[in-house]
């Protein structure tokens, strides 16, 4: 019997070595595997290269990993946010390296890694600072730059439900980078709100087929989803909800 479920988040992050490249799903807070990140902090791996769209929000999750000085370098599209004070401080102090990638190129480079594509010509970023030094080419009258895959040793992602084969479904815009990161890492670790029996997920609706997933851990209802309050998020006016609830 195939059973990719592991009993707890400690077991889920086992084997992540110092110096590893780790993709972490999420767009801001949505889809961020906070429980796995907390376990990674406790696990202790350091000198990490992190791939994420952002560079942490508030003081939890990815921001806490950064605050613990475990991250040597971050590859992302949008580090600077209203609540990215942890990253901001480290960056200004020269304590973290940043590789800035346009968001769509980040996504496509991750997908390319999972799909076995050696490199691809993208029109995004042509003629900008972020394409400097990259191979350029005109194809069919349009200009492109050559972009290479981004691979990782591990991917930590968050999904709504999973089964023991590793099939996953996501929830709303928390899907974001999870499905593509799952394809691009040597070992993919998924936290899910709920593990369901094999066969419960309609085969027509599986978003991430189990072959991309190595470990599944149930974390229960995510605490920052409770009471209709987006813990650490922003309200309708963009103010931090945490502030309001303090």
């Amino acid at each position, binding site marked *: 019997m195939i059973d990719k479920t592991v009993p707890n988040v400690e077991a889920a992050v086992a084997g992540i070595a110092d110096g590893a490249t780790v993709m972490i799903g999420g767009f801001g807070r*949505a889809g961020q595997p906070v429980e796995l990140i907390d376990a990674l902090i406790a696990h202790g791996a350091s000198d990490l290269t992190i791939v994420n769209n952002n560079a942490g929000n508030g003081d939890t999750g990815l921001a806490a990993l950064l605050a613990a000085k475990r991250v040597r370098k971050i590859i992302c599209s949008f580090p600077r946010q209203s609540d990215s004070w942890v990253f901001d401080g480290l960056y200004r102090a020269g304590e973290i390296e940043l590789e800035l990638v346009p968001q769509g190129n980040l*996504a496509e480079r991750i997908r390319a890694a999972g799909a076995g594509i050696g490199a691809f010509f993208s029109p995004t970023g*042509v003629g900008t600072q972020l394409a400097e030094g990259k191979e350029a080419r005109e194809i069919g009258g349009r200009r492109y730059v050559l972009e290479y895959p981004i691979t990782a040793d591990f991917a930590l992602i968050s999904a709504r439900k999973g089964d023991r084969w590793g099939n996953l479904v996501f929830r709303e815009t928390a899907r974001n980078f999870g499905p593509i990161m799952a394809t691009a890492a040597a070992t993919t670790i998924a936290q899910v709100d709920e593990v369901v029996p094999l066969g419960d997920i309609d085969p027509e609706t599986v978003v991430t087929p189990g072959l991309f997933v190595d470990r599944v851990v149930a974390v229960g209802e995510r605490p920052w989803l409770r009471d209709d309050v987006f813990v650490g998020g922003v309200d309708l006016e963009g103010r931090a909800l945490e502030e309001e609830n303090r």
Partner: protein
Amino acid sequence: MTTRISRDDLARRIAADIPEGSYVNLGIGAPTLVANFLPADEEIILHTENGLLGMGPAPEPGLVDPDLINAGKQAVTALPGAAYFHHADSFAMMRGGHLDVCVLGAFQVSQTGDLANWSTGAPGAIPAVGGAMDLAIGAKDVYVMTDLLTKQGESKLVAACTYPLTGVGCVSRVYTDHAVFDVADGAFVVRELFGDNTIDELRELTGLALGATEGN
């Protein structure tokens, strides 16, 4: 004194130019306001690059769902007929030219349609690009929504951008608080003047040889 229309009026003006059935991405910040003025009796489908097509308005207070946000990380809703997808699929929609309109903010727009909106190039600033470069090339029409002048009174419409570029030759139209400009054949052409603005005044404000469409 030249007329300057309000942010809301500008958003209303842009909304009026978006035909029913369009697929539209509204950039973070002021462009988001355009959604408030889309006609309630028409269907215009909003895309947010973090994985949703058919985005609806902000939820009622108390119904905030942390998994359902827009690219600005604000709470939103999903309309009947919506679809969720992952980031590679979402940016494929943009890069592949499937959106009709993107509305973006700007630091500068050049008369050849170059856009600068992601970095002022200030020393010590933390760079962050997000989806700006993808959006800049990511629609059949890229509209810019901006004040004509900076707070210091400098024109955001320029002969050539001095700020770091977001995209080259990508802007098709600029909606400002003074007037609407089309980018055509390497020049700004005044499409519509607001209030008592005149082309000559705009030429003075921008320092550019602006073209005029018939009637302006």
